[in-house]
């Protein structure tokens, strides 16, 4: 099965734009140049349109935070029966027919990651999915264990000071995390033991097989988790990183990744008081160019992901990094950059085609293509807004 996208403005993100064609065979990109001729291919005329790699959402709760339903009954984001729940897996809470999948298609999001919520200091394991509605759920999985979700700051304190009475302050959150990892080390050192799946997961983090993705908004929370990370030596990505612009120079020296957003929420919580639309631009100026943007869908709608990139440009971010922050950078962050995140020969045929430039928020996504299959066609299905 071959798909030939013809005569568009192709922006591969990791190489310069050109007018031309993209050829996909068996789900992989095999041609990327002008005037490709392939008689047996299905042809998609993209004249006057703009072609990009599929958008990637690094941090969402699609399907696990059920939509269009009563608030509690389909919300499986936070297992707050205990503060440390590494054994919980987002996979078990995802409703595969949830409306969020459809909204993501209309937004040109071809791959998204789903994490458990931020109520627990150690919340559980995330999963990365391809957004092809025709695939069986198991076949949508790109990365079964995409990281261990952890959380600092207001949320664990607020939830567990009342629900389990195990955490009353930020000091408590930090010690719950330290104790959990120390328990894992003690478990490893024990000669005779029964297998403990919770400890095994924490050991994977300590061994660098699983990255810790840590919800942290305020600079003090960011500094605390960096302190803990350096004590135990695990790989880490900061999620939200709302005050990262206040300590950008410090963060630039650290071996950590950043996932910034959602940028469009009201400043209800104290920990987002310093949220700024300039954060991406300030990070870029400090030399941090591998951050990605996130919507935390449904906190803000997933179709706001490219609009976050647009607003960041309006506030000083380069257009190049803006596009990277929603394509190749989230792919790097998830360790999937050999497969997705840019248009390159050999990579997955995940493509979004827009009538205007992707960074122009008045664009319409005309086609979303996953693994070389057209999974959304605006003319046929209408806008899903």
């Amino acid at each position, binding site marked *: 099965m071959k798909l030939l996208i013809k005569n568009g403005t192709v922006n591969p993100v990791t190489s310069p734009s050109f007018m031309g064609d993209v050829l996909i065979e068996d789900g992989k990109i095999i041609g990327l140049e002008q005037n490709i001729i392939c008689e047996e291919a299905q042809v998609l005329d993209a004249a006057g349109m703009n072609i990009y790699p599929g958008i990637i959402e690094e941090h969402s709760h699609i399907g696990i935070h059920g939509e269009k339903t009563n608030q509690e009954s389909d919300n499986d984001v936070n297992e707050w029966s205990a503060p440390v729940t590494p054994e919980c897996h987002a996979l078990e809470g995802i409703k595969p027919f949830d409306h969020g999948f459809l909204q993501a298609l209309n937004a040109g999001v071809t791959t998204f990651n789903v994490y458990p919520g931020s109520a627990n200091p150690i919340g559980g394991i995330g999963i990365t999915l391809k957004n092809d509605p025709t695939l069986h759920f198991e076949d949508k999985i790109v990365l079964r264990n995409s990281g261990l979700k952890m959380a600092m700051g207001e949320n664990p304190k607020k939830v567990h000071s009342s629900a389990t009475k195990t955490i009353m302050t930020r000091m408590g959150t930090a010690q719950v995390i330290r104790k959990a990892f120390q328990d894992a080390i003690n478990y490893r050192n024990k000669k005779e033991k029964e297998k403990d799946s919770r400890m095994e997961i924490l050991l994977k983090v300590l061994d660098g097989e699983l990255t810790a993705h840590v919800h942290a908004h305020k600079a003090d929370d960011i500094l605390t988790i960096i302190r803990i990370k350096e004590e135990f030596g695990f790989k880490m990505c900061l999620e939200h990183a709302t005050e990262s612009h206040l300590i950008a120079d410090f963060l630039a020296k650290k071996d950590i990744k950043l996932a910034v957003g959602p940028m469009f929420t*009201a*400043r209800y919580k104290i920990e987002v008081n310093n949220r700024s639309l300039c954060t991406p631009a300030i990070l870029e100026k400090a030399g941090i160019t591998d951050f990605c943007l996130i919507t935390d869908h449904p906190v803000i709608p997933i179709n706001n992901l490219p*609009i976050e990139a647009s607003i960041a440009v309006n506030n000083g971010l380069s257009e190049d990094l803006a596009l990277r922050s929603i394509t190749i950078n989230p792919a790097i962050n998830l360790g999937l950059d050999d497969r997705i995140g840019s248009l390159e020969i050999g990579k997955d045929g995940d493509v979004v085609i827009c009538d205007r430039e992707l960074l122009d928020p008045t664009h319409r996504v005309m086609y979303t293509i996953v693994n070389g299959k057209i999974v959304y066609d605006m003319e046929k299905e209408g806008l899903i807004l």
Partner: protein
Amino acid sequence: MKLFKNGYVWYNSNLKKADFIVEDGKFVKIEEEIVPSDLCETVDLNGKYVYPGMVDPHTHVGIFEECTGWTAGNDVNETSSPSTPGMRAIDAINPMDPGIESARNSGFTTVCVLPGSANVIGGEGVVIKTYGTVVDEMVVPTNKKIIKLAFGWNPVWTWGKQEKAPQTRLAVSALLREKLTSARNYMAKEEKEYDYDMENLSSLLKKEAVARIHVANLEDIETIERVANEFNIDYVLDHATALHTNPDYAKSLNVPVILGPLNVAGKSFQTYDLTFDSVKILHEAGLKISVMTDAPVIPLNLAKIQIWLIDRFRMNRADVLDMFTINPATVLGLEDRIGSIAAGKDADFFVSSGDIFDYRSKVEHTFINGIRVGGEL
């Protein structure tokens, strides 16, 4: 007197090269070319774009303050009773709320501030300009009082979880009927003690007030129509999330409709029908639509995202801008004072570096009553 020259000015539903004069806080003249005189200070706009100050007909800015945590600045819902018609939003508005600053910096010059939707009868709303330190001086007087009501899930959820009435939609309309009947009895009494609640409800019955009704689902809209007809009150449908599912019925109601906030994910059952399509469908059905942010639900500095997303339907852009300017001004009964650039109206406008539909544009200056009050730079 100030002459603003060489701008592209949005007036008469068009963007045209034009000059305009502002005096004593009002637009006094807009013409293609006005020759400068010694009487006028001249400001050269250098081809910048000028739009009328935007109007948000449904917000909670000032009473649901940002940057104060969830509770300290939150005075939206007086949930000591499901019926609080005497409450006044003005009594809780903090002019220093950063949400109000966001509003003016982003080109929103007038907002209506309403109590929330937890109570069936929430209280009295107020219209303010988005600049000032004394709320009383920010008020834009309206001919009619504004009384906030709410139907559906919010009152049922708020009171139901406390095991108090209303537990169901049945009790929401029953409570409203009972209160309006009490007001009718109150009005009929010759000798009476002044009652704040009854006075505000009476003003609805006397058509000296407009009910602003929070509603999402179609069955609730139908109930509102029934109750409003029984008591002959004027009303506006706020949110009206499911109204587009029956456009013929929507048209037959012949009441103002304020849609939004639209740029939110459909998190709850109440927002089951939430879609930007509602704007297009109801506009094409012939309704004059306004769009709200419900700020801080969508902060006003991000309201333009709704404008861009509506533009994806490729409707006439003049019609889209009307939804954020003259249409909401009309809903508030203030179309003679605000909502467009025209001689005699308040000089509320913003100067943008480019077209408002272009994401690269910045609001460089916002003017209220002819005075520069902010901007994004």
